[in-house]
């Protein structure tokens, strides 16, 4: 039998304006416009949705899982976080400029 395999498109939906588009899955479709038409009913027939994106599967570039250690922080990076800082509840600066640690 002839191979009639349609290409794969990844589908992203946006649940409300202002929300990010989220990946929901993928479909076979002959072209991008059909992917929008068909993707809408496979992935958005129940949940709220205001917009969808479809992207050809080949257009996705991904990191390799075997390199997932690139995401591990080697040293203390708490300075990037708000919880990495300690500030007193009340601050009374003296004339000399030292804070009261209360």
């Amino acid at each position: 039998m002839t191979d009639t395999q349609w290409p794969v498109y990844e589908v992203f939906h946006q649940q409300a304006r202002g929300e990010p588009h989220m990946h929901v899955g993928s479909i076979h479709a002959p072209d991008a416009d059909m992917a929008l038409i068909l993707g809408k009913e496979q992935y958005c027939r129940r949940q709220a949705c205001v917009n969808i994106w479809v992207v050809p599967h080949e257009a996705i570039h991904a990191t390799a899982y075997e390199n997932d250690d690139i995401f591990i922080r080697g040293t203390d990076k708490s300075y990037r976080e708000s919880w990495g800082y300690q500030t007193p509840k009340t601050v009374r600066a003296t004339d000399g400029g030292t804070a009261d640690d209360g």
Partner: protein
Amino acid sequence: MDKIETLDALTGATREAVVHLLYRMADDELIIGHRNSEWTGHAPILEADIAFSSMAQDEMGHAQAYYEILHALGERDPDTLAFGRKPREYRCASLVCLPKGDWGFSLIRQFLYDAAEQVRLTALAESSLVPLAQLTTKLRGEEKYHMMHGRTWVLRLGNATTESHAKMQAALDRAYPHALGLFEPTEFDETLAQAGVCTREEELQKQWESAVAPVLDDAGLEVPDSARPVFGGRVGKHPPELAELLNQMQMVYSIDPAAKW
């Protein structure tokens, strides 16, 4: 034109005409929804199966909504109207009664039908009958999707391969005369137009022709020259396929129409 704010305000000849209009619309929606539902589990590819099934659900949902209005106008409840009538009591056009045929036929039929529905819903959104105008306004988003679906498919299949072109042209030749039957004139047209409820069928047909012609042309398909409209559905004369369809549709219901299912 005076607005008719509530269904209760409908009287006399206008009321009778509205009832007839609603039966036509509801029966068309029910039967085409039923026909399209026959594709669920059998379409050319899973993704297409899902989308077409949603459209069948939409059409049946519209039918139910129209039957609800009829019920509010004193007719029987929606289930009894849908499942409990004899073939000659239905007011649907022959287009929707025909068997589903191949994918090309079902797509062309649905496209021609949706274009007609869109023309009608656009007219009804301005209807003097406020409850109907409100309902039809709500349905237009679904119809817009149906039009996108139909045009996208038809444009592609009409132009793609020699085989697909031939199949689509054959489907159009078969469906077109029946599609004209969607605009079968009725004895109520004048009353509906006078009361500002709905545009005359003749006028709707012209709008429909100018809506479908450019798409069919872009799809490389020719509207059959001498298509003679197939009438009769609006007065209860149907092709034999409707009785067969109803036999199936009413099979369980008629085991015991009084029972809860």
